[in-house]
């Protein structure tokens, strides 16, 4: 495993994190805000 591999793995993990945060966690806050509004 070279540095390139680790960079790809870390990048992928970060991207997966962002996707799930955006669609699940951020969207919940978004919905809640609208609901309270």
């Amino acid at each position, binding site marked *: 495993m070279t540095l390139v*591999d680790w960079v*790809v793995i870390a990048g*992928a*993990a970060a*991207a997966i994190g962002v996707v799930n945060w*955006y669609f*699940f966690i951020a969207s919940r806050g*978004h919905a809640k805000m609208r609901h309270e509004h």
Partner: protein
Amino acid sequence: MIDTPIAARESIRIPVTGMTCAACQARVQSALAREPGVSNASVNLMMESAAVTFDPAVTNADRIVAAVRATGYGAELPATDTSPFLEQEARDRSQRTELRVMTSKAIMSFAIGALAMLVPMLTMRSAAFTSALPYLLLVLTASVMAWAGRHFYVNAWNALKHHSADMDTLIAAGTGAAFLYSVVATFAPGFFVSHGVAPNLYYEAVIIIIALVLTGNVFEARAKRSTSTALRSLVELQPVSARVVRGEQEVDVPVASVIPGDVLLVRAGERIPVDGEIVSGASAIDESMLTGESMPVEKGAGDRVIGATINRTGAFRYRATTLGADSTLARIVRLMRDAQSSRAPIQALADRVSEIFVPVVISLSIATFAIWFVAIHLSGALPATAAVRAFAAAVAVLIIACPCAMGLAVPTAVMVATGRGAEYGILIKGGEALQRTGDLTTVVLDKTGTITEGVPTVTDVIVSPGSARDADELLRLVASLESESAHPLAAAIVKHAEARGLVRESIQSSELIVGRGVTGVVGTSALAVGNAALMADWSVSTAPLAVQAGALAGNGKTVVYVTIDGALAGALAIADPIRATSRDAIARLRTMGLAVVMLTGDDERTAQAIARDAGVERVVAGVRPEGKVAEIARLQREGAVVAMVGDGINDAPALAQADIGMAMGGGAAIATEAAEIVLMRSDLTAVTQAIALSRRTMRTMKQNLFWAFIYNVIGIPIAAGVLYPAFGVLLTPVIASAAMAFSSVSVVANSLRLKRARLS
């Protein structure tokens, strides 16, 4: 309408455009549910509409439309005061236009895609052309994306803004990634070459993917159209003109200008233009298009006729009653439309899955890229080579995972099944009703008018031994006395006498004795007609007829004794005959594994006799209307899922209490709010057919959901390359998009099989 001061509610139906899959639908649905004041919202992808119930004090139609638009979809205020016919025609037109546009987009994309694949092969020899080719393909691909694939990107972007994702997101991400990669390879091929990889272009893949997804959409749109053929054919039944009698003249006028009270003329072979009541003439009328009953029905003066049915034999005049939006046909069309846009509870499963599905798939796609990259890189390939191959697998995962089959699984089945039901004269008010009917364990039948004809008829006339009068004379005198009574038994006697051509005599006097019968003087004879209690009051012994009367009562018949001038002259037996189809239908219900219960207000002995004759196993006799509700509630407490079959007018509370209320009796029953299912035929076989249809439909829905789900469960790992190490199998993005289109089409085709379902 009566205003209710508390919890005022209004319902509107908003046409929503731009929804392409279950996730879109779920998004609009949750946006509406969040809207303050909205108590109920049901969004239907197939009907492209949202049915919303709201509190007008808190919100209004404009705000609800705005809420839908905020999610990125098109919505309009519903046009007011349009007839269901016009509405349906307008939707048909827009569906046709949509289909035409989509078809031409798909064909053009395929043609350009084929060109993009062939041209590089044919021009391989020409060096000048080869260097110009990537730029040419770039322009072609960009135009296809901007024209044919535009809505994928627009929808995906709108969804993204609202933190949600749908199948368009997957397609946009997949094709967008392939396109960007190719653009880099076009402008900086040196970057790839220097890393030892050919600067691969995915332009033709982008075009072909768009073409394939569009093809899938075209098939879907065509299927959508054919799922609503039943509704369309009902709308087409609406006659255009009517022949109105004005003074001495007959004038042809458009149906819309007929007013209630107009007298219309219908000749043999013509379609009856509007609902009404026959004034003169008689005919056999074919009502099969509304009731599913193939035998024409004989009708004469005083009988109701229904607009859109066909007059087969004679000519008649009739007076128009209900028209336009209140007509029977319009009510059926509206009921069907609402039913088709309703949601089955099982749909919630599909919605839930597709909502969480897209982010999960995007995550899987990224993981696929990382795993492939590391695996190929570790096997000794250069990082750039690894990146190219990992990229193809990641795009294939995005493309294959489209959940559109999931979104189509339930609504297509609901639409086809409600349409099929209507052809049998069974109007099912929506997906929930279908699902619950499929789960029934017990069918409760009202006796009068459901198992039986509902019209008492004289079955026997007995003359006392030694009486001077014969049966006809006895009947003639009794009919004369009873002719002024409104009692149903009296009506049966009078009708029977009329049928035998007996002339009634004038009455000198008559007195009604409640709960006993009637007494009076006819001609020169003093009569007492009534039950055993009345005879006892008159000190007349019923003993001479005891054996016969006992036998009749044992068969569920009501015995009416007749005394003439103080001596027992005879007796009449009156019964409500069992419908010809009831026995078979009840036997069929039992073979379907359902418990059959008969409810009746009759006494135990009569009830048992009818039940025995009809083949019903359980009888609850002597129940009053409110007692029916309690009886159904009791069955429900025991864990039964109960259907109540009744006439819809007297049985409304019981129909409402039951899990499924089935109102029998055609036109009038459509208006019955309490019933989930309206049977246009007064025939218990319609009950068996409704249950059989619901069970089939549930089976179809479950198959659809299973296949849609299994398809993704199998397709995604294959696209991700799990089979590659063992078998060398890897899907290209193009094959993945073809497989995806195929899955939607197979689900729709499975639902369409319900169209040919045999129910008897």
